[in-house]
């Protein structure tokens, strides 16, 4: 260990006297650690060994034992470690860990709540969608039913109207045919007299003498009878 401390060694190689003159033994370290250099002879020097052990337990100077292995500082460190760590443990147990933990738990609870609420809302919206679709299907089938009914009614109406008009037309046709038949028979009945008159005229014109009405009628009826 002591090969690390060559610089300081030169100054402290002489057996250092006890407490009162720290400034002369190690000027550089003096402002920071005056009491510590008090019993600080280099233990590399056998001559100083006796002084070292007598002078005391704060032998933490540069020439002293390697600081982490210096038993004289152990008691102090243990006491303060116990106090400070106990303080930290108490603070942690009473204040700090519950504080941080509660924040994390709060957040986890909040997230779980939010997820639950979102789940509920989703279920509600699903139900709403289902009922909407049901209503839509119902309305659609109803509208189809109404349309079919209306078509049926319209068809029936059309058929009835058509039947009525056809019947009317049929009646008119029948009446017209009857009238035509009458006119035809009447016309046919008149054909004989017209032919007789015409034939009498023709004969009168051609022969200059009016033929007998009976002869003409006989001739006409004979011609018609053919």
């Amino acid at each position, binding site marked *: *260990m002591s090969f*690390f*401390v060559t*610089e*300081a060694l030169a100054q402290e190689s002489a057996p250092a006297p006890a407490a009162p003159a720290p400034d002369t033994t190690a000027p*550089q*370290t003096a402002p*920071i*650690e005056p*009491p*510590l250099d008090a019993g600080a002879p280099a233990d590399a020097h056998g001559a100083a060994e006796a002084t070292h052990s007598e002078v005391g*337990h*704060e032998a*933490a100077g*540069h020439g002293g034992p*390697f*600081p*982490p*292995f*210096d038993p*004289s*500082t*152990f*008691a*102090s*460190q*243990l*006491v*303060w*470690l*116990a106090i*400070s*760590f106990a*303080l*930290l*443990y108490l*603070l*942690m*147990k009473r*204040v*700090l*860990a519950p*504080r*941080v*933990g509660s*924040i*994390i738990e*709060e*957040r986890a609870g*909040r997230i779980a709540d939010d997820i639950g609420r979102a789940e509920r809302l989703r279920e509600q919206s699903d139900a709403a969608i289902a009922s909407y679709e049901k209503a839509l299907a119902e309305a659609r089938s109803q509208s189809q039913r109404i349309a079919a009914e209306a078509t049926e009614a319209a068809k029936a109406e059309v058929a009835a109207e058509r039947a009525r008009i056809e019947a009317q037309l049929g009646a008119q046709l029948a009446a017209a045919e009857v009238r035509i038949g009458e006119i035809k028979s009447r016309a046919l009945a008149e054909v004989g007299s017209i032919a007789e008159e015409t034939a009498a005229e023709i004969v009168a014109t051609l022969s200059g003498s009016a033929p007998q009405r009976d002869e003409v009628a006989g001739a006409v009826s004979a011609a018609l009878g053919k």
Partner: protein
Amino acid sequence: MANDPIHQFQIQKLFTVADVGGVEIAFTNSALFMFLTVGAVAAFLYFSTAGRALVPSRWQSAAELSYEMVANMLRDGAGKEGMRFFPFVFSLFMFVLFANLFGMVPYFFTVTSHIIVTFALAILVIGTVVIYGVMHHGTHFLGLFVPKGVPLAVLPLVSAIEVISFLSRPISLSVRLFANMLAGHITLKVFAGFVGSLGALGALGIGGAILPLAMVVGLTALEFLVAFLQAYVFAILTCMYLNDALHPGH
């Protein structure tokens, strides 16, 4: 003194408090930094969570992250019953972490670079394990040293190994942390010393000092990693040892 890499580990007495049977109890720089560490941990956890925000700020996020990291570590390592030790493990982790990080500040004292401090913490852990284990499991706690499924012929040997391994735990736990902090700080100081002494040699020296300077920069980053990692390792080993106290059956 400037280039003495050991100087940073000196215990410096600030004032004497008591003298118990010839043993002087003094308030030292080490004690000062222990309280600074405790104060910093408490202030960090207290003030960062002052907002109690649903969406955390950066500081609150850091506090919650460290809380949850240790909580998960303990739950994974020692099960649900292990959560009763949470304040203890979280205190240990934060104390070691902050002490290590304080050590990274120039001119600050590194509390964890003293074997007595890390050894006391390790003994605290093992003591908790033994006391809790014996209190809750009685002689069954000794089952820890008798692994199941081992042939009777080799059982004495295995048990002896288990006992030695158990006894070496506080030593390995404390020496790991102590040696890491000590070696890292010495290395940093030695390389930084090279920069100073080479730089004093003139132009050539300044050129040559660039290499150790780069080393110091890299080592500083490494030491920050080590500071965190050692606190993490200390906490996770604590969790594993506590698991033995809770479930000594295996």
